[in-house]
């Protein structure tokens, strides 16, 4: 249930946010590396100098993705919708004349609160709802990625992220 919900959320926002952030950082890191190479460094030296000047790219990327997700209209709309479902549940539970209607109110409150929590916690930890298969796949990809930057088709961001 949670992973199906996560997939819907991912399709709405996560991928394009990460793609935009990567593209922006990629542009910056690419230009920096070109500049260092133009100044006479080898590609290897240029990568090291870029890392030093840019700082911790993982942290920067994560911060940017997290901030972007907060401002995402779809996330805000989902939060609003779940808050309304919760409120509707409260109204039904308070004003219902009969016990079985009262239960519907409680059900709505639970759905609203849990869904809101899922959206909220996803903003704090993006990998929380990432299916395990995807995580394993990216780890395997990272292992198989060649470290030699000659003939390397990876983007500058991917290179920095994978060269541990």
């Amino acid at each position, binding site marked *: 249930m949670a992973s199906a919900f996560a997939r819907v959320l991912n399709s709405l926002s996560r991928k394009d946010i990460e793609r935009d952030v990567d593209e922006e950082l990629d542009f910056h890191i690419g230009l920096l590396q070109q500049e260092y190479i133009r100044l006479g460094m080898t590609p290897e030296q240029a990568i090291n100098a870029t890392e030093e000047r840019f700082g911790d790219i993982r*942290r920067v990327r994560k911060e940017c993705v997290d901030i972007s997700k907060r401002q995402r209209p779809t996330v805000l709309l989902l939060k609003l919708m779940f808050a309304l479902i919760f409120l509707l549940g409260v109204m039904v539970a308070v004003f219902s004349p009969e016990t079985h209607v009262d239960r519907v109110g409680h059900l709505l409150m639970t759905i609203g609160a849990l869904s809101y929590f899922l959206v909220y916690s996803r903003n704090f930890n993006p990998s929380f709802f990432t299916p395990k298969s995807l995580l394993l796949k990216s780890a395997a990809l990272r292992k198989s990625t060649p470290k030699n930057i000659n003939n390397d088709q990876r983007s500058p961001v991917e290179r920095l992220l994978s060269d541990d």
Partner: protein
Amino acid sequence: MANNRTDLMQGTLELLILKTLARESMHGYGIVQRIHEHVDDLLKVEDGSLYPALYRMQERGWVTSQWGTSENNRRAKYYKLTRKGRKQLDAECANWNRISRAINRVLQTT
């Protein structure tokens, strides 16, 4: 030389970004290059720290961003100061002047 570089004070990077964008819209790399030119190696500014600051400023409505084509024909995100950002720049400049005047006064008397 590297030892003489001072870390930026909290919130100062935002002031530098606002001031840099006051003249024209720019992409992140352009902003940081301009800042490096002006601070002339006196301040330590990590390029990466610029982006979370820019994203937070966008969240607060101080800047807007738009994808465009850079001078080397690549897709780049350009940032532009909003009216709210310009007001913030005025407020932060005034605040900075007040703080530096106060600190100078203390340094001169003791």
